[in-house]
């Protein structure tokens, strides 16, 4: 008879804990659910790229949009959400592998410079708008006018099938 209130209290506590965990998980999902947009300087002559083409650009294999317009890679500094997505989906590398990749790329004389590091989304917006040939990744919520969002595999951020999440 006396165990019943204790059980009830324990059950209530367990339910509260579960609810908290669920809420936290929902919150975490909400924080990282936003898609990452591929953005370029308005003069870059592309509106749609396949995921493989985005990879080719960010791996430094494709270095020119055309003979007069070199590609300028911008990438967020470590721990930014955009960088995590890019490393996971585009490069399929860890931070260490990413650093090693660019050291090797330059050592092989395949590229003269690594991607430029950007420290905030605001600066990404402004540099992408200002540097001809620039390409970068931005949280789709942070994209501002003055730059061009590129479709990836025919999809814009937020559309079903968009790969950069």
């Amino acid at each position: 008879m006396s165990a019943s209130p204790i059980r009830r209290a324990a059950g209530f506590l367990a339910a509260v804990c579960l609810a908290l965990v669920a809420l936290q998980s929902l919150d975490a999902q909400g924080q990282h659910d936003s898609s990452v947009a591929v953005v370029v300087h308005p003069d870059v002559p592309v509106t749609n790229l396949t995921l493989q083409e985005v990879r080719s650009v960010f791996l430094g294999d494709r270095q020119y949009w055309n003979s007069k317009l070199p590609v300028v890679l911008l990438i967020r500094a470590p721990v930014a959400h955009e960088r995590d997505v890019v490393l996971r989906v585009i490069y399929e590398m860890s931070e260490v592998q990413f650093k090693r990749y660019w050291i090797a790329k330059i050592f092989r004389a395949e590229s003269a410079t690594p991607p430029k590091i950007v420290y905030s989304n605001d600066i990404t917006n402004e540099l992408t708008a200002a540097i001809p040939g620039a390409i970068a990744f931005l949280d789709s919520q942070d994209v501002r006018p003055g730059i061009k969002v590129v479709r990836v595999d025919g999809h814009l951020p937020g559309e079903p099938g968009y790969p950069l999440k």
Partner: protein
Amino acid sequence: MRKLLLAVLWIAFLGGGTALGQTPSPPAGQAELVTALLERIDRLERRVNDLENKLACAPEPCATNAKLVTASAVDPPAPAAKNATMQEHQDHPMPAVEQSTYPSMQIRGFGDVDFFATDQKGTTSGFDLGQFVLHIASPLSKKVTYFGEVSFTAQNVAQSTVYALQVERTLIRYDYDDFFKISFGKYHTPVNYWNTEFHHGLWLQTTIARPEMVKFGGTFIPVHFVGLLGEGEIPSGGVGLNYQVGMGNGRGENIATAGDAGDINNNRAWVVNLFSRPQHIYGLQMGGSFYGDEITTPTAPRMKELISAVHFVWTRETPEFLSEFANVHHRVLDTGQVFNSLAYYIQVAYRLPWLEKKWKPYYRFEYIHAPKGEPVLHGTNLVESTAGVRYDITEFAAFKTEYRSTKRATNEPRFNGVFLQTCFTF
């Protein structure tokens, strides 16, 4: 009074504790701080954007920021909209757009320290300093870049140690676009995958040593090439075809060296390399190459040389798979005698998923056979197994431990060795 003294001591102790608490936090704490600061910057930027949007949209209802930009991505904005965008940007201080200053030289170094002990007769065990390598990359303009690589190697000469300075690579390249780039200078000959993938950066390669067929100072494949090289992509969709076509001096009188100071004959060497990096199979590279030359040395008859090579590699580390095969065809011009020497290696490695992915065991099998009577490659036979493990101490330094079992000629005994190396980039 005693209580007052105790109170003062207590306060001093607490103060000291606070001061100790203000000592620099460990790196992990700094990383958290950086993360928190970056997140805060993002939050503040979002807030500023929201406020700006509210201000900009105040007179009339407007779509969300994302929708506005999405629309501009698909359809070019009307001039009025463009002006509005420009205006918006003029309201903000623009970041200092990087003014490209040329030349902008970057230097990276590679180094290694080695230990070895073998049961081969006539050898001694011990440490050696390996190579000290400096690599230079310097864009001279948007489309012109200089690359250089020099090495310092310790050598015992006449009871003293000297450091031999070698210009390993020095080239200037003009890029027209992705499909055509032309360069002039001294290269690692693009007739072999390993030769152009790892150069002198031992930290970049999994194993301690290069395969024998491309070892520095070796004769099987010409490691260096002085001349010009055209390279680029071949429009091929997802196949990812690339080419390299070069013409240069070829082998020198000592066939292990290139003709840095001029060719030894009037015959130019040539090289053609085709390889594919399929876009849909990320990490795969396969290709083949040909190299032609005329060999003129004081100790051997004049010969035509044709090297054909193929490679098939998977560069992801889970697993890593490297394989190459090369055939060196020599034809003596006076007698028409023909010699075919072949070499191959297969290397497998796997970065273990545990222990912070710092361990990478590997195995390599190598084989070289030059026929009897081969005028310049005689004595280069080899059957070797290498097993080892690489441990990445930090992001930029590694330890490697290797066991090798080697047999050079049928009438010579097999010998074994243990090799250790620490290599790094800086």
